[in-house]
């Protein structure tokens, strides 16, 4: 046990979860180094059972992977994920009224709780949210009256009796069909979608507004938060992310570019312009700089599965908040504190505006988020341990254990350490997802999806 050591000093430990080790399982996507713009992964999301894993990309496509049934002969190969369905969710569009191009890039994917044999997900680009149904079909009808199965027509004079088609088994076919299109409700870019625990409504948030939709009604949504000032010159902050509480159907939060999180209770009022709680940490004056405001902007907010905590990601850190304590986070983890001295160059190459996401493991004991150089970070909350791991082709032999990586922060560089200056800022991990029960994680580099799992002892 390494109790007492404050996290974030870059101390390298065995790995989160005590003696848990992560090993490579799969990598998806093209191997060559030329990255087509359309192939850049823009979101990753497990469904509620973890059986399916969806990714969205800049080309507007959604790819769904399905976990194979466990292979009894090779117990160490736990259930690989293979492509289940691929479909074009959004197409590029042009708004003629505003002369605006609307990118097809998938900003978010959210799975709906399963309601029948089919699966449903919401996918959104900047303006339009779509509800997709992914269903299986293993039977097809056979038997026509007027033609043969091969399409040749029969002489109509030979028809002496009616034939009712019968269904016969066929190879499994997976179909994705758009069920609803929720359009024309957002003036700004949609950054979040979140399904309510009442299974009936969901919210969508853009830079200045949060809208509430009924999943079955596409022509109407209710604006529940509007932070647009009467005069746009007075605009000081924007909404960066929003999420519903996992159990309380009346509670949602939204984060802002100023580093605050507002919690709203929809029971109090139909319009949630007034928040019920404001989570904000007083700024440390010693760290004050030109970049303070930019790096305090929250890029992602996620409730823990148990609904007690929420996690926020800003540029340099991950913070865990207890919903019952508004004045400061209960835990703060530094993701890449060593970049603080390099903010100036990160500002120049726009990296400082990267929106890193974060996620919880199944029992809320570990959190994960991405960094640069294809590194991603895990923080074990109970044990106060952290780990830096790397998603790379070099480590992609089956079941190869991921070696912890370490970034050297000044002074002498030890063996196996990487100096801050040699980090590749073009390789970044913005999107990660954790299987809802098991220790299986999906980590998206620019155009590859890595799947890692804990080593079975």
């Amino acid at each position, binding site marked *: 046990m390494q109790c007492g050591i404050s996290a974030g000093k870059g101390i390298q430990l065995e790995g989160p979860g005590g003696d848990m080790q992560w090993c490579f399982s799969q990598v998806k996507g093209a191997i060559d180094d030329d990255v087509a713009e359309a192939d850049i992964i823009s979101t990753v999301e497990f469904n509620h059972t973890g059986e399916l894993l969806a990714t969205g990309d800049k080309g507007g496509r959604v790819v769904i992977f399905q976990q194979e049934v466990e292979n009894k002969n090779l117990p160490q190969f736990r259930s690989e994920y293979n492509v289940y369905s691929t479909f074009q969710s959004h197409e590029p569009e042009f708004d003629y009224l505003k002369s605006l191009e609307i990118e097809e890039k998938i900003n978010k994917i959210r799975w709906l*709780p*399963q*309601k*029948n*044999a*089919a699966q*449903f997900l919401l996918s959104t680009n900047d303006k339009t949210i779509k509800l997709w*149904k992914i*269903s299986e*079909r293993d*039977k097809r*009808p056979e038997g*026509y*009256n*007027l*033609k043969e199965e091969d399409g040749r*027509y029969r002489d*109509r*004079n*030979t*028809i*002496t*009796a*009616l*034939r*009712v*088609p*019968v*269904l016969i088994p066929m190879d499994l076919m997976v179909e994705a069909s758009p*069920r609803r299109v929720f359009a024309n409700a957002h003036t700004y870019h949609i950054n979040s979608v979140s399904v309510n*625990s*009442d*299974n*009936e409504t969901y919210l969508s948030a853009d830079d200045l507004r949060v809208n509430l939709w009924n999943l*079955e009604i596409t022509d109407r949504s209710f604006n529940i938060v509007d932070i647009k000032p009467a005069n746009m010159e007075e605009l000081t902050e924007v909404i960066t992310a929003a999420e519903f509480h996992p*159990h*309380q*159907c*009346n509670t949602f939060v939204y984060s802002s570019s100023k580093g605050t999180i507002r919690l709203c209770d*929809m*029971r*109090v*009022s*139909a319009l949630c312009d007034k928040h019920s709680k404001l989570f904000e940490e007083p700024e440390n004056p010693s760290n004050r700089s030109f970049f303070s405001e930019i790096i305090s902007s929250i890029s992602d907010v996620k409730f823990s599965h148990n609904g007690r905590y929420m996690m926020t990601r800003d540029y340099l850190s991950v913070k865990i908040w207890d919903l019952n304590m508004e004045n400061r986070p209960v835990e703060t983890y530094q993701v890449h504190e060593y970049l603080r001295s390099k903010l100036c160059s990160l500002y120049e190459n726009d990296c400082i505006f990267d929106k890193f996401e974060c996620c919880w493991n199944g029992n809320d004991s570990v959190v994960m988020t991405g960094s640069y150089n294809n590194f991603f970070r895990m923080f074990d909350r109970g044990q106060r341990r952290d780990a830096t791991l790397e998603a790379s082709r070099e480590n992609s032999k089956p079941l190869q254990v991921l070696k912890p990586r370490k970034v050297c922060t000044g002074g002498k560089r030890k063996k196996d350490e990487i100096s801050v200056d040699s980090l590749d800022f073009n390789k970044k991990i913005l999107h990660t997802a954790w299987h809802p029960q098991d220790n299986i994680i999906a980590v998206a580099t620019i155009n590859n999806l890595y799947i890692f799992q804990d080593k079975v002892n």
Partner: protein
Amino acid sequence: MAGADGDDSLYPIAVLIDELRNEDVQLRLNSIKKLSTIALALGVERTRTELLPFLTDTIYDEDEVLLALAEQLGNFTMLVGGPEYVHCLLPPLESLATVEETVVRDKAVESLRKISQEHSPVDLEVHFEPLVKRLASGDWFTSRTSACGLFSVCYPRVSSTVKAEIRQHFRTLCSDDTPMVRRAAASKLGEFAKVLELEYVKTDIIPLFTALASDEQDSVRLLAVEACVSIATLLPQEDLETLVMPTLRQAAEDKSWRVRYMVADKFSELQKAVGPEITKNDLVPAFQNLLKDCEAEVRAAAANKVKEFCENLPEDNREQIIMSHILPCVKELVSDTNQHVKSALASVIMGLSTILGKDNTIEHLLPLFLTQLKDECPEVRLNIISNLDCVNEVIGIRQLSQSLLPAIVELAEDAKWRVRLAIIEYMPLLAGQLGVEFFDEKLNTLCMAWLIDHVYAIREAATSNLTKLVEKFGAEWAQNTIVPKVLGMANDPNYLHRMTTLFCINALSEACGQEITTKQMLPVVLKMSNDQVANVRFNVAKSLQKIGPVLGSNALQTEVKPVLEKLASDSDMDVKYFAQEAISVLDGNFSLQMVQPAFLLLQIFLRNVRSVETPDPVDEAYFVPSPDQTCRFFNVLQNSCQNQPLAEYIGKWGLPVVFFQLAFYPLLIHKDLVWLAAPEEMKVRMLWSVLTSEEHAEQNRIRLLTPALTLTAAGM
């Protein structure tokens, strides 16, 4: 029906069956909607053994197809062999009851409820109840939500052991993990309670009701409010206090505004259900709180109920309760910050005057009305004006007229045309209330000003407003006040205003009668036929057609005809068209307008029938009109041919008779349905027309006639 070699009558059915799996949704939908025709052709045996199994597995389809299927199956009992076999319909409906689309599930449940009545008590236990159980314990919430709607239909007709099981299932669903199911259970709670024995209402329903009403999700709690109404009506008065009221009180003070909104929205029903005593002691304070609620949506819902609530108060101390408890809250609402609240109140507040009587109205309500009449929001003012009649009965409108006039004028000149439109609609009502002198003095100018509004919708509404005013005040009044002004506009430099004159004449001629129309209006219309704007000229033609019936035949022949004939040779195509149409209508032969739809229909029929005739028909949109389409077609035809023999009529219109026979062909597909439903006279005509035509081939005639004659012989 089936059987004979290469039977032609099988062909349409074969097409229908094949199209059950066509790639085009519209064609599949068409086929599904004619499922009864298919089933009829197949016979009950094959419907049960082949068609239904196929349909059971068709749940991959589009929602609209599934919806149509779910609906069809509810009426299928006879087609599967009657009540004895009705349980064969359960499997397809069961799978439809689990699809994700709510409308489809609801329709499937509706059909299941319908056919449950056709089950014998034994079948109900053997087939139907197990289905309900399966749905209730299904893996997915879709099936469990569907189950909620089925308990109440089978409960009354099963044995007591099964009843106990059903109650148990319902209990389980009320505490389901997913809020969807709990919501479905909560919304069916009242309905289920109604079929339960009173003792079980107390022992089973009340605990469930209490639990759902304190569910963690407000979307569930608010549905319990609805159940509260039906449960309260079932229980004896003495039990209400202990069993229902605690929950209701709690709901009225719920943390969530949506629950309180629901209480406010259902307040009148609740009030009736709990009776006068509890209303006095509990609901009055609760209602006061809702009127003062911090959420505007709740206040608006409560404000909407003010009149109804007061009306339903026990009469003995109604006035006292209103004056001391309700009115103070109402007074506050008049100056509410939210305009929806104010306008909700404005739509009912006038109703209080009848309840409170003349003195109270003058003393307490009048100031409120006057404040609302001056409200900044036009909707509030409009709502007050629209309900003036209630006050008029009690205190007379004179009390209000001083404030009324400025309010009306302001609305009449509002910058938003929808507001102007709304006030125009109240003009006839106001005119009736205020009387003719007041109207002439103050409002007439407004009505005229609207005629030259720059928005067409306003001009149009102003025109029909004039008609209503003339109906109210009489032709003489029209002649003196309106007609001169309207006719004056005929010389307006703006052609839109000139056209307004014509529209007014169209609207007014009937109400004004022959004399005014002939003597005053007609000359103006005729003069306008020389207008330089074509739009005005063809409107002249339309106007003449319109006012023709009002004019005497003398005027028609000597004045109207020549002008129309002149217009019929106009250089403008539209003017020509409308003039010709007016001529043919006024000639009184038959209306082109009436014939056109028949023509169109014939063409459509023709095209579709032709596809049957071509050797390669399957890819074409083969279309069998439904029985009521066919009936409609013949109605149109019958109307337009008036009393002439059909064939003659068709011949006159240059339509080859054989076309008509082809159009007749699809009818024969529905021979059993349409033929029998057709009026006797129509049958005779149809047959007659086929028999008297000489142009078509013998075989055609035989093909067409045989089934009809067979049926005629057998059925008529």
